[in-house]
């Protein structure tokens, strides 16, 4: 059975009438890397909270349907059981940093302390994850003295260090410099190759195309399309519904309308596909 299994999930936040999620059915296999895209307000973050168990335990509200993650039925499990299986990195790292720790090193160790990991193992794991996320130099700084992008790496590291079975990342690269963002995708891909299951919300289509196994497109609380990056990210349905496509796809679509790119030819998503496609059109 799939490691993450949402069956007919509908959810309303407290004091609201319109569901934020409507009849969501989603299965994610162990080790799979699924990217979730969609316009703002589509329900992407709500989906993250639901998989991580923050819905309903923290946000309350009305949840219908079943959510099973790593063998737990999240509605009937406690939040402290859920967080051991699923790590969630918040969209805004400012909201995630504990405020209880004076250094980056201690901040990253916070979750391990709370789950009773022995001291020596803790030190080793924190060191490894700081290496992996490129923040070793920040170990002794206060989390609050860091730039937005540095805080975002700390937030990611403090989730990775927990070695959850399921990694849920809500726009983990939104404040990162461009090459830093690509590096985070590479790290996430590596975690997924090691067997971690990844659900990642992002707008950076170019890197989704390159690294994700599957793309789920959401709009108005529903999943409107899912499939391989190559299929979903070139869909004209999405282009016409206000989804951001990569500049390569956009340029090729414009080229189609100007008669430069044959209509039956597949649209590119990545740089390599665009180079291959456009150079094939040269005389």
């Amino acid at each position, binding site marked *: 059975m799939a490691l993450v299994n949402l069956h007919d999930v509908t959810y309303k936040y407290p004091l609201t009438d319109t569901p934020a999620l409507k009849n969501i059915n989603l299965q994610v296999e162990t080790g799979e890397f699924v990217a979730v895209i*969609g*316009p*703002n*307000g589509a329900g992407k973050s709500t989906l993250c909270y639901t998989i991580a168990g923050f819905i309903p335990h923290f946000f309350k509200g009305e949840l219908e349907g079943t959510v099973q993650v790593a063998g737990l039925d999240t509605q009937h499990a406690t939040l402290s059981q859920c967080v051991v299986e699923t790590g969630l990195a918040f*969209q*805004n790292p*400012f909201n995630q940093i504990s405020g209880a720790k004076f250094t980056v090193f201690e901040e990253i160790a916070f979750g391990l302390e709370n789950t009773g990991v022995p001291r020596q193992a803790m030190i080793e794991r924190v060191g490894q994850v700081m290496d992996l996320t490129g923040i070793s130099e920040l170990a002794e*700084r206060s989390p609050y*003295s*860091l*730039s*937005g*992008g*540095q805080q975002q*790496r700390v937030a990611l590291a403090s989730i990775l260090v927990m070695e959850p079975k399921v990694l849920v990342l809500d*726009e983990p690269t*939104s*404040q*990162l*410099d*461009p*090459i*830093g*963002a*690509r590096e985070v995708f590479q790290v996430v891909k590596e975690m997924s190759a090691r067997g971690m299951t990844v659900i990642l919300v992002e*707008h950076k289509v*170019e890197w989704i195309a390159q690294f994700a196994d599957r793309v789920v497109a959401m709009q108005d609380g529903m999943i409107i399309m899912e499939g391989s990056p190559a299929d979903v990210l070139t869909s004209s349905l999405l282009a016409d519904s*206000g*989804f*951001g496509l*990569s*500049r*390569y796809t*956009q*340029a090729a679509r*414009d*080229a189609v309308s*100007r008669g*430069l790119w044959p209509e039956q030819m597949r649209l590119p998503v990545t*740089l390599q596909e*665009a*180079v291959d496609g*456009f*150079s094939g*059109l*040269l*005389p």
Partner: protein
Amino acid sequence: MRIEIQDLHFTYPGGVEALRGISLSIASGEQVALIGQNGSGKTTLVRHLNGLLRPTHGQVRIGDWDTADQTVARLAARVGYVFQNPDEQLFCKTVQDEIVFGPKNLGYAADRIETLVEDALALTELADEKDTNPYDLSPTWRKMVAIASVVAMDTPLVIFDEPTTGQDAASVQRIAGVVASLRAHGKTVLTITHDIDFCAENFERVIALSQGKVLLDGPVHEVIDQPETLAITYVDPPQLTRLGKSLGLGVPVRSKAEFLAAFRDLVGR
């Protein structure tokens, strides 16, 4: 209003040397993007323009004022600053109150405030939400409230700190519209951004910082044409610039329109 920065150094308490000798000038009405890797000093630099930070060494002038002699409150009349995180700047009960707060504080006449607030609401597409509590809006729209509340202050210089972070395609378009409108009104705009495609499409001049120093400063086409130098500060050129280079277009392109024109030339050659 002209910005003059001379040999600016800044060291945070605790010893982190964030700016290490920055000199640059920005002419009145210029639209400049500020790019560079995390921790390169972008936010530290712009916080000197409205006096939130004071130089450890060097000088910052906004028009005829030396920021060292001015309070943050006085500088607010010349420098509008949209924070990276809107939650750090919003505190009123309604969107309308939030937007009124700035111009009212600057002592503008009632009818001018009314016009400015209406224009800002229209520009940010918030007119239907003016009685809503900002915290009942999604983060995307809170960002628009933050932008509107600064635009309504009608300052000659407007600073955006990563305006497109976490925004979808429609919202990025809306923000590009705000920048275009400020340009049309002759405002000086300085925008920090990691979104290099947005940067190339909307700004004429680009400054790249690296480790507290200016790495590149020039017209957008020159800056995006230097991938090796940009890589020093963890920036890739825009997607279409990279594509154009791989195809051998011969000129650096910054937008779809430029790419397709150059590609058509290549096909026709």
